C-alpha cells in the first residue's frame, strides 16, 4: 500500500519557482492496477519519479507499507520493493541484456530464466540475451528490454512510465496480457501505469486524471 500525502514539487524557474505537483494526496492499495492519465506536462512522470525517489518533493510525505520513505534514496526504495520502468530507456556501453536482467533480479539468473522475461515482452530471447544495451537496438527493442528488467524485479509496487511509447501494436497487445497477468498474480502487489492508451485505461481498477499538477478526476 502506497500513500501519498499532500505532496508538492516545484522547480526553480528563472524568475520564480514553478510548481509541477500541487498538494496531491492519493492511495494505491495492494492488489490494484492504477492508471494515471492526463495531458502532457500535467505532472504524471514527475509524480512517478517522486515515488521512485528520482526527484525529491518540496513538501509532503510518501508512505510505503506504513513506513515513511520520503527521505529514502532511490536504492533504498528499490530494496523496499519499488520498481520503475523509464519512459526513455537508458542506453549503456558494454552492459549486455543478460547483465541488466541479472542486476534487476538481484541474483545470478540462468540464461534460461532470464530469457523468460524477454519472451514475456515479445522478444526472441536467444537473439537478444548477449546484445549490448546500446543504440544498436531500436527504440522499441530498448523499451521492451526496459520492461523486462522491471518484470524481473518482482516488486511490490511497479511504476511504468508510458510503457506504450515506442512499441508496435503487436507487442502492445502482448504487453496488455503481461499487465493483466501481473495483476492476477499480485494479491499484495500493485501496479501504477502512466498512460494515454485506451486499452491500458480499460484494464485499470482505478483511473486518476492528473492535470496541471492536481488530481482532476479519480474513479473506477
Amino acid at each position, binding site marked *: 500500500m502506497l500513500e501519498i500525502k499532500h505532496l508538492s514539487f516545484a522547480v526553480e524557474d528563472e524568475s520564480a519557482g514553478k510548481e509541477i505537483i500541487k498538494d496531491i494526496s492519493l492511495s494505491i492499495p495492494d492488489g490494484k492496477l492504477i492508471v494515471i492519465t492526463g495531458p502532457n506536462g500535467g505532472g504524471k512522470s514527475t509524480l512517478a519519479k517522486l515515488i*521512485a525517489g*528520482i526527484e525529491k518533493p518540496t513538501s509532503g510525505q510518501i508512505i510505503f507499507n506504513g513506513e515513511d520513505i520520503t527521505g529514502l*534514496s*532511490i*536504492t533504498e526504495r*528499490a*530494496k523496499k520493493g519499488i*520498481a*520503475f520502468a*523509464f519512459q526513455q530507456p*537508458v542506453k*549503456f*556501453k*558494454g*552492459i*549486455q541484456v543478460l*547483465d*541488466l536482467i541479472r*542486476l*534487476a533480479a*538481484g541474483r545470478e539468473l540462468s540464461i534460461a530464466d532470464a530469457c523468460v522475461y524477454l519472451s514475456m515482452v515479445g522478444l526472441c530471447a536467444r537473439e537478444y540475451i548477449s546484445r549490448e544495451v546500446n543504440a544498436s537496438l531500436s527504440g522499441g527493442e530498448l523499451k521492451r528490454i526496459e520492461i523486462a*528488467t522491471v518484470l524481473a*524485479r518482482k516488486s511490490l509496487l511497479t511504476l511504468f512510465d508510458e510503457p506504450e511509447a515506442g512499441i508496435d501494436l503487436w507487442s502492445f497487445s502482448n504487453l496488455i496480457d503481461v499487465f493483466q497477468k501481473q495483476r492476477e498474480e499480485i494479491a499484495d502487489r500493485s501496479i501504477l501505469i502512466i498512460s494515454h492508451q485506451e486499452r491500458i485505461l480499460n484494464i485499470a481498477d482505478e483511473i486518476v486524471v492528473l492535470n496541471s499538477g492536481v488530481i482532476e478526476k479519480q474513479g473506477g
Partner: protein
Amino acid sequence: MELNSIQQYLLREIADIDGEIKGAYNIRSDSMSIGRQSTENVEIVSKTGVSGMDIFIKPDTKGESVHIPVVMTQSGLKETVYNDFFIGDNADIEIVAGCGIDNCGNHDSEHDGIHRFYVGKNAKVKYVEKHFGSGEGTGKRILNPVTEVYMEEGSTCEMEMVQIKGVDDTSRKTVAELKAGAKLIVRERLMTHGLQQALSDYAVSLNGEGANADVVSRGVARDDSYQKLDLKIVGNAACKGHTECDSIIMDNGKILAVPALEANDVDASLVHEAAIGKIAGDQIVKLMTLGLTESEAEEQIINGFLR
C-alpha cells in the same frame, strides 16, 4: 617449473594461466626464462646480443597458441626486451603476452617490451596483451610497450590490449603497416587511477588497396590520473580506416584525445570518433532503481565499458 605465490597470482591476472599451459610458451620472471616450450610448428629461440626471443610460426599452422607472459617481483628491476614474431603465410595463431609487476619495494620497476610482428600472407593473428601492477611499495611500476605490426596481403590481426590496474606509468606506442587486403582490429582498454599516467600512441598506415583498420580505445581515468590518446591513421590507397577514442573521466581524472586522419589517396575513406565525459547520470539512476548503490552502479557501468 616451480612458481611462487606472487608469480602464480600475476600469471593468473595477465594470462589466465592456472596450472599447465597448452602449446608453445616462454615464461619470463625477473629477467630470466623460467620455462619454455616449443612445438612442432612454433619455435621459440633466444636472441643473441639483446634480451628477447624470436618466435617462428610455420606457414599453415592452425589453431595453436603461444603464451609469453612476463612477471616481475623484485623491486628496482629495469629491462628492455625485444620479441619478434615471424608468422608464416596462412597460419592462424593466438598469441598471449602480458606483463605483471609486483613491486613491494621503494625502487621503480620497469619492463619495456618491444614486440614486432611480421604477419605473412593471409595469416590470422589474435594477440592478447594484459598489463597489471600490484604491491604496496612506493617504487613505481612502469611499462612502456612498443608494438610494431607489418602485415602482408590478405592478413588479419586482431589485437586486444588491456591495462587493467596498478601500472603507474605507461607510454604505449603502436605502429602498423598494412598491405592490400590486410585487416587490423585493435581494442584497447585503459584504466588509470591514483596519480597514474598513461600515454597511448597509434600510427597506422594503410598502404594497399582494400586495407582496413579499426582502432578503438576505451579509457577510464579516475582519481588524479591522466591519459593521453594519440590515434593516427594514414590512408595511402583505396582503404578504410576507423578510429574511436571513448573515455570516461571521474574524480579529478584528465584525458586528452588527439585523433588524427591523413588521406593521401582520393579513395581512402577514414573516420574518427572521440568522446570524453563523466558517467551519464541516467545510467546511474537506472541501476539505482534496480537496487544498486551509487558506487555499485558506477562499478557496473565501468566494468561493462571496459569489457
